[in-house]
Each structure stands twice: as structure tokens, then as C-alpha cells.
């Protein structure tokens, strides 16, 4: 176990064999020098032979967003640095790649219902994260695949790898084919720039989420025809799955509609873990100086059209670490 480049206070451990040189990134085990606590280290190698063209700008974008993005289902970044040699390191909470976790959990959990519950909890978390990106922050992830989903020791699925995250601009259009071919929507495969520029933002990640659902339940997608096989997908998810994979981008389901999907939300495990976890309605109020407003209950609509939040919690923080939170009992009224 060696030192991390750039003098960060972490030991760089062995790479995870299943996550080596994925679009230039490798996942390493690591430990903190201070308290020996385990961490994960994402390491970007600009000299990777597996890269098509210059992806340094994407990797820098990944570092920037990993440090600033705060959400219960986004991999928590502890530190990050870009070395003079062009290597980029992102230190995060300890996580494992999704496919590794699926293999291990499938072997450990002999009860099929329990395993299905664990997957449902994971998918519900991923849906929260993508809905947050697409609708609350108004950016697309762009590189969403099983390589962008990681699992914590508690079984939370979290999103990372924000290489292409942002608005659909010239930079995105130049690099959007960095995504695995099996996760590319038809307009991305054909590199139809006009369609990509004008399509709704949520349609980009909606297709990728559909492919991820197919991958989780039915194994990796090799051919496009595999997507039409819905036999292994739970019945409660089938309709949403088909709407996520609509050929026309405008008709694709917005991921925020899945937040109220019975299969994902009406589950005892999901409800319990969201109860124990971070607030459901946590949102960034002010992006310049992050001010989080965490609402304990769903807003209540009043007859005059106003919305009441009965209990709320305000979290005040600076990037990259949230420093203070102020749990507060407040009565908010918002005119819609």
C-alpha cells in the first residue's frame, strides 16, 4: 500500500480488478492515514490506452462535481486532487462497483425476496439521485451505466462518475460517446447532434436508467434486441421500464415519475431505510453558498393554492464539506 500522488493523507491500496481502466478511471482500495478508516480512491490515468481522444476535461469535470454535489445517493467525496502529471484522484467513502455487489449479495442472500428487496432499495436510491440531477439541479448525468453506480456497506446504491454531467453543450456533444455502447440511446448511437441538442434533458438519463434496470434483473445487455425481453423484470416495473426506453426522446418517462412508483416506494425496506437515512426532500436552495432545506414531510396543499411545510431543517454549509446544520421547527408558506 503506497502513498497517494499529490501528498493526500491516504494510503493507495490495490486496484479493484473489476473496475480497472473504465474510461480511464480505476477504483482502488485505500485507508486514511489519520485513523486507518477504509476509503475508496478513484484514480484517473490520462495516459490510458483505452481512451479515445482527450478526456481530461471530462475527468476534471468529474472531480469538480464530485466535490460539490451533495445528495444522500451521490457517492460522498472526502477529498480530491489533480496532480501536475495530469492524474486525478477522488477520495470517497468506501464503495464497491454495482456488479460486484450484485454477485456477492446474490450468493449471500439465499432468500429471493430479501435479495429483491435489496435491489428495490438500491434502484429507489438511484432514482432519487437521477431525479435530483435532472429536475432539481437541471443537469444530465450523461455517463450513467452500471459503471457509474456504486454500493456502500449499508446497501445504498449511489451515483458517481460525473464526467459528462452538465448541460447539453458543445463539450457534451463532442464527448457523449464516452458512454458504453450498450447504454447509448438511438440518437446517441447515431450521433444525431440536432436531436441531442433539442431533446428534453431527462431523456438522456432515462434511457440509460432503463438499460440499467434490464442489466440488474436480466444480466448485461449485449444486443439492442435484449432490451425487448422483459421476462425477468418485476411486473411492477415493466410499464415504467418500457416508457423509459421509448424510441422518441420526447415520449420518454421523466425519472421523477418513478419517485411515486408503487413498486419502488411502497416497500417496507425502502420506507424504513429512508426513515433512517438522509432526508427525502433535501435540496439545494442556493447553489452559490449551499443552503440545504430538508423537509420532514410532504408539503400540504391548501385551498388558496399555497403550500405549507410544517417541519423543516435548514442545513448551511460550504463546499466541499457541509459544516453546520440547524434543525429548526419552522412554518413555511410558499405561494405557488
Amino acid at each position, binding site marked *: *500500500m503506497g502513498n497517494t500522488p499529490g501528498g493526500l493523507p491516504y494510503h493507495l*491500496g*490495490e486496484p*479493484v480488478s473489476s473496475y480497472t481502466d473504465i474510461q480511464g478511471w480505476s477504483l*482502488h*482500495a*485505500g*485507508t486514511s492515514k489519520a485513523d*486507518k478508516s*477504509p476509503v*475508496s480512491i478513484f484514480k484517473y490515468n490520462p495516459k490510458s490506452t483505452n481512451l479515445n481522444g482527450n478526456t481530461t476535461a471530462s475527468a476534471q469535470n468529474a472531480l469538480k462535481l464530485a466535490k460539490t454535489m*451533495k445528495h444522500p445517493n451521490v457517492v460522498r467525496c472526502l477529498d480530491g486532487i489533480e496532480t501536475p502529471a495530469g492524474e486525478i484522484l477522488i477520495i470517497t467513502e*468506501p464503495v*464497491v462497483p454495482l456488479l*460486484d*455487489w450484485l454477485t*456477492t*449479495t446474490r*450468493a*449471500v*442472500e439465499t432468500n429471493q*425476496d*430479501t*435479495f429483491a*428487496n*435489496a435491489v428495490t*432499495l438500491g434502484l429507489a436510491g438511484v432514482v432519487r439521485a437521477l431525479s435530483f440531477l435532472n429536475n432539481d439541479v437541471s443537469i444530465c448525468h450523461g455517463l450513467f451505466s452500471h459503471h457509474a453506480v456504486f454500493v*456502500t*456497506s*449499508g*446497501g445504498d446504491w449511489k451515483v458517481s462518475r460525473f464526467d459528462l454531467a452538465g448541460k447539453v453543450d458543445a463539450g457534451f456533444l463532442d464527448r457523449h460517446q464516452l458512454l458504453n455502447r450498450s447504454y447509448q440511446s438511438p440518437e446517441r448511437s447515431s450521433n444525431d447532434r440536432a436531436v441531442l441538442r433539442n431533446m428534453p434533458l431527462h431523456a438522456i438519463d432515462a434511457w440509460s436508467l432503463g438499460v440499467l434496470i434490464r442489466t440488474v434483473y436480466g444480466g448485461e445487455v449485449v444486443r439492442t434486441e435484449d432490451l425487448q425481453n422483459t421476462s425477468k423484470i418485476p411486473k411492477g416495473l415493466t410499464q415504467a421500464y418500457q416508457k423509459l426506453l421509448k424510441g422518441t426522446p420526447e415520449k420518454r418517462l421523466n425519472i421523477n415519475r418513478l419517485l411515486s412508483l408503487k413498486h419502488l416506494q411502497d416497500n*417496507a*425496506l425502502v420506507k*424504513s*431505510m*429512508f*426513515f*433512517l*437515512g*438522509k*432526508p*427525502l426532500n*433535501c435540496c439545494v436552495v442556493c447553489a452559490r453558498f449551499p443552503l*440545504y432545506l*430538508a423537509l*420532514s414531510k410532504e408539503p400540504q396543499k391548501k385551498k388558496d393554492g399555497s403550500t405549507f411545510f410544517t*417541519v*423543516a*431543517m435548514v*442545513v448551511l454549509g460550504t463546499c466541499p*464539506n*457541509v*459544516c*453546520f*446544520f*440547524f*434543525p*429548526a*421547527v*419552522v412554518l413555511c408558506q410558499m405561494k405557488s
Partner: protein
Amino acid sequence: MFLLSCGRIVPDEIMIRTPEEKFYFFQSLTDQLDHFPLHVCKYRVLPALTSSLSLGATSGETSMGVAGPIVLVPLLKLGKLGNALFGWPHVQHVQHVQHVQHTQHTQHTTHNTLTHTTHLHHTHTHRWTTSLTFIFSSVARDHVERRRVHHPHYTGRVKNV
């Protein structure tokens, strides 16, 4: 607006729930644990239960604002998982805790920790909650340390130690 506390982490959902909601949550948790994956029991439910017991247990209430025994029932159920949850027989740890208790409370003789905890009296709530917190926190800590030695990266549950 009342300023209640401040810290370095984003607060958990449970902290902003009413005592009634927490009561029903812990009450329903016991039945639901059978359908929860082991890693969730170990890394999410167990820390939440032990931390709720470790603070404020002297008043007969947990730090979550619900009565201690409500939290104890799911905790005992987790204890039953024993070997499946932690990878080695649970009996050894019960015996170890019996010894510790014997030295701490010499006038109170115990033969079987788990048998006695099923007959909880309010006067003994603090003693038992403290003992059980000790059981699970020590088991969890030892287990985490073993995991770090053998699996420096993967902290999730594996089949055999």
C-alpha cells in the same frame, strides 16, 4: 425558529420525525427484520438502534424520544441472527458479557443474559440497555476490525470469514 443543535453532518430523517412516528417505526421494525438483507441489518439498523440506546438511556427513554424497550425488541431479534450476522457463534459473546456484568453488578446474579432480558422491569431498564448496547457495539467493532484485516476494501458482508 428554534436553534436546536449543530454539527458537521447532514441530519438524518429520523431526527426530524415526531415521537409518535418513531414509536410506530420501531414497533413495526421487529416484524420487518425477517425480510431485510443482512448487510442492511448490520450496517444500517444495528447502528441506529445501538446509538439510540447509548444516549439518554438513564431516563428510561432513548435519544430518539421513544421508550427503551420499544428499541430493545428489534435489537434482540438482531441478536438472534448471531452467527448469520457476524460470522461466528453468538454464544461466546453472551458468555463474555455475563462475565463483565458479574464483575460490575456483583449482587445481581445472572445465568443467561437473553433469558433475563425477556423479563424486563422498568427499574432494570438502564442496566439492560447498557449491557445490550455493550454486546452489540463490541461485536460490531470487533467484526469491523476483522474485516479490515482480511478485506481492506470491501466492507460489505461476505459468506465466510
